[in-house]
């Protein structure tokens, strides 16, 4: 249901209920007042007739029972009157008065039914006469209903009019909302420009500004996403280009040149495979995909596996391990991710430090978490670099070659499983990477 219809229903419903209650109250009052006024008329007419009769010098003869017209008695239309002697003889009556005796009940107001017609009568005793005036109750009710209609019709019309005006008024009041709706409906799904509506009421301003903030955020996310796709494309196309180029050279040439080209193509394939694996790993960590197949791994085995993965990397022997854990500690991170994280840190340390320098791996506990700290004595990173180093596809400008995803993967793992990756400059120069990983509750809690 549209907002306009809804408002109209609420407002119109309220009008109708309130006006009806007021009308019932008013009309009830009106009816009482009318009855009182008509009764008063009966009474005063009776007194008037009695006064007239008193002025007659002699008492009315019984013979004089011929009807007197109402105007002769000075009575208004609809009223009837009869005068009786105390003995019950009808002395005078208006022509339309039923012959049956009205108001035998005595003095005062009475409702009677004579010949199936209901009457309201007033009887008064003056000396030796009874004067009774009466009017028909159905005439009274006809009068009442015509008064009711006269009173109710304008109210009803006003009510309808106010409903119509409310409908247009609501439409006018909701105009900014309507123009906002039209503006949004016209927009391209791709359009993330801020919305601007003229004469925006105060109530809608927060809505529109929230909307605009949302647009901003989505636009920024899209830019990030696009950059990621571009970077990923670059990351895969570069080795692919090398593969293709060298394979073509191998086709074009013979002998040593062809052999060398094939070797180069193989190197490029290796690099591409590594990039692809890192990308897939990152995508898996960042998605909500489960790593349930992976078992949990102890910190000691984690270090062992990560080191074993690096055997082929030149300078592997430079890694010096300092283990401060005494008992077995289970890491609450899937095995493959924990191993990949540590391997990436060690790989970076080996890659970016001088050939003869030492890379230190410290394994210990800190704040109920496992701490893996990798320190090298390479050129390190500037503060600015450290800010950016965890971003996807970031690499140092002085020694390219990595996929630019190593630290991004570690960061994604810590974000997903509740660890922390802290990078800082080592006091001795080089980079000092602190990787905190959560410990599984099932492992022993004594400090290592």
């Amino acid at each position, binding site marked *: 249901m549209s907002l306009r219809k809804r408002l109209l229903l609420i407002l119109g419903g309220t009008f109708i209920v309130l006006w009806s209650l007021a009308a019932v109250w008013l009309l009830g009052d009106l009816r009482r007042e009318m009855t009182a006024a008509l009764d008063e008329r009966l009474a005063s007419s009776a007194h008037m007739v009695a006064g007239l009769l008193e002025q007659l010098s002699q008492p009315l003869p019984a013979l004089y029972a011929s009807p007197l017209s109402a105007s002769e008695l000075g009575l208004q239309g609809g009223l009837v009157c009869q005068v009786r002697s105390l003995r019950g003889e009808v002395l005078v009556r208006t022509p339309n008065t039923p012959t049956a005796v009205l108001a035998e009940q005595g003095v005062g107001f009475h409702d009677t039914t004579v010949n199936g017609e209901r009457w309201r009568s007033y009887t008064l005793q003056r000396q030796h006469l009874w004067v009774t005036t009466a009017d028909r109750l159905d005439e009274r009710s006809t009068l009442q209903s015509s008064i009711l209609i006269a009173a109710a019709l304008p109210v009803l019309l006003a009510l309808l009019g106010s409903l119509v005006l409310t409908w247009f008024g609501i439409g006018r009041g909701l105009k900014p909302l309507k123009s906002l709706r039209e503006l949004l409906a016209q927009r391209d799904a791709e359009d993330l420009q801020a919305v601007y509506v003229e004469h925006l009421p105060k109530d809608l301003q927060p809505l529109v500004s929230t909307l605009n903030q949302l647009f901003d955020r989505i636009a920024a996310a899209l830019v990030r996403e696009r950059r990621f796709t*571009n970077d990923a*494309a*670059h990351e895969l*196309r*570069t*080795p*692919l*280009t*090398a*593969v*293709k*180029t*060298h394979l*073509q*050279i191998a086709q*074009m*040439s013979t002998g040593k*040149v062809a052999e*060398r*080209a094939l070797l*180069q193509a193989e*190197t*490029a394939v290796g*690099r591409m495979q590594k990039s692809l694996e890192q990308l897939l790993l990152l995508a898996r960590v960042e998605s909500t995909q489960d790593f349930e197949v992976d078992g949990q791994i102890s910190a000691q085995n984690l270090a062992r596996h990560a080191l074993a993965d690096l055997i082929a990397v030149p300078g592997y022997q430079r890694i010096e391990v300092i283990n401060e854990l005494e008992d077995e500690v289970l890491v609450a991170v899937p095995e493959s991710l924990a191993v990949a994280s540590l391997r990436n840190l060690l790989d970076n340390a080996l890659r970016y430090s001088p050939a003869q320098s030492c890379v230190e791996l410290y394994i210990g506990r800190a704040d109920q978490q496992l701490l893996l700290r990798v320190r090298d004595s390479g050129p390190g990173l500037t503060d600015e670099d450290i800010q950016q180093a965890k971003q996807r596809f970031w690499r140092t*400008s*002085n020694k*390219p070659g990595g996929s630019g995803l190593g630290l991004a993967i570690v960061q994604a793992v810590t974000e997903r499983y509740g660890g922390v990756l802290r990078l800082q400059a080592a006091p001795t120069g080089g980079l000092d990477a602190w990787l905190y990983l959560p410990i599984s509750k099932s492992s022993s809690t004594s400090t290592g």
Partner: protein
Amino acid sequence: MHILLVEDDLLIAQGLQTGLELQGFTLNHMAHAAAAEQALELGHFDAMILDLGLPDEDGLQLLTRMRQQGKDLPVLILSARDSVLQRVEGLQAGADDYLLKPFDLRELAARLHSLLRRSSGRSTHLIEHHGLAFDPATRETTLHGELVTLSRREQALLGALLQNPGHILSAEQLQDSLYGLGDGVESNAINVHIYNLRRKLGSEVVKTVRGLGYRIGVPREPA
């Protein structure tokens, strides 16, 4: 044809160098924008292959700066950035062509030839000069309709002279075109190739301008 290759990825650079040299080009490879800029100051190049993701600077910045300095060297951008916007940006920055990675070596060579052809204002690959015809793409040389067999260096030397008709090219410039920058080749190596060209195409085909260098002359009359 002497090409400056600016590419930070060593594997690709090696591939391009070998692949294009097999197709008759002479290449110098630079991995950084700064080095490329230096090379442009030092030597003469016929065209430049530019990668955009350089470690020290974006390739587009280098290109924009080159164009601002008035260098009109044909530039072919070689990039993995594939969106239309990026290609448009590249071309607007002053590139003459844009080739997406991965590419085909033969297509790259053909595009380079087209660039060179356009930059010297010709409508076909074939360079004709007094009955001498040289096709840089196929590297075929004919004199008055007859095929002449030239070595790779001789082809490069003839190409360099024919592409700059009327210009006097110094021995260093010719040497760069044949061997690339700073190869440390004895300058009389050029003389050997000039001698061979004169022997095959007529003694007046390469004119020596004393103290300045060489320019293309008139080949032998048909027999």
